[in-house]
């Protein structure tokens, strides 16, 4: 990967981070400690609630790259329980003027209500990553986490 291509990827992650902060100012977002994802989001007052964020170029949506990523993710995610937590996949353009899209992915059928099963690669559809939609998605992940705690 060239330096410029690497910088473009970094820029996309920073754009996604800013979208998430706009959607929910209570988030604490850090670089992901695992290679598979770009970011890890937590809540300041409830660190047990967390979710992963993977950022891909908008262009990946129309190529085989995204499907390849999702298949790979589906395989890897099933390996460890830590990845049972939902993932927000954000597709961003190379500039902030290009509209971003997102979806919530999960590895099993008991994920957040609107989440998509990561194995059903062909079924995955994206929503506009506007502040309201992202905010609702984050709220849904929080509710889901709380329900899991109640169940266990």
């Amino acid at each position: 990967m060239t330096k410029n291509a690497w910088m473009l990827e970094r820029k996309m992650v920073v754009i996604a981070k800013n979208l998430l902060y706009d959607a929910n100012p209570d988030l604490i977002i850090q670089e992901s400690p695992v290679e598979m994802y770009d970011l890890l989001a937590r809540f300041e007052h409830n660190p047990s609630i967390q979710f992963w964020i993977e950022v891909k170029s908008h262009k990946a949506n129309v190529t085989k790259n995204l499907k390849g990523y999702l298949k790979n993710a589906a395989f890897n995610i099933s390996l460890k329980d830590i990845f049972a937590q939902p993932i927000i996949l954000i597709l961003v353009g190379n500039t902030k003027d290009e509209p971003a899209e997102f979806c919530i992915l999960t590895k099993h059928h008991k994920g957040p209500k609107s989440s998509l099963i990561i194995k059903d690669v062909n079924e995955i559809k994206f929503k506009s990553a506007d502040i309201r939609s992202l905010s609702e998605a984050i709220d849904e992940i929080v509710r889901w986490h709380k329900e899991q705690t109640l169940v266990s």
Partner: protein
Amino acid sequence: MPGRNNPKVGKKGEAIAEDIILTEINGEFLFDPAFVGSTFPGIDFYVQLTPSDSKSLFFLAQVKSTYSLYDTKNNLKIKCTLKKLKELAKNPAPTYILGVDLIGKKVYARFIKSPVRKSLNFLPTNFELTPKNLTLLHKEVVNYWKNTKTLTHKKKFKSITYD
């Protein structure tokens, strides 16, 4: 509205500053910012100049963010204590305060020049980090390093590679 010392305000400001520093200008990124705030108190970003002819030159940045925005003279209302400014001014590397307008998502820069005699209560807004000013900032940092003896300094601990 979150308070000035709220860590959430700081995180959001840092993310906005990082985004602006990572502006692509004519198909090229001029800066490569690395967040070091959790490692070095007082410094938020180590920012390397990216084009290959820049010889890994860099500057340091401290980010101050505000929702309070501007005073009547259009200065950004941020604060930095004299103690902190003196600490920042001790750096031999070029060091800047980056003031972030959290609503308008604008970033303003100011070089921290030694000696520092008083605390900072506002930041002038005549140096917003627009693409044009980012280019000027890049030139300023290159010139800063050119005018120091750092690059031509004679080393006692000579390496075989360099001899």
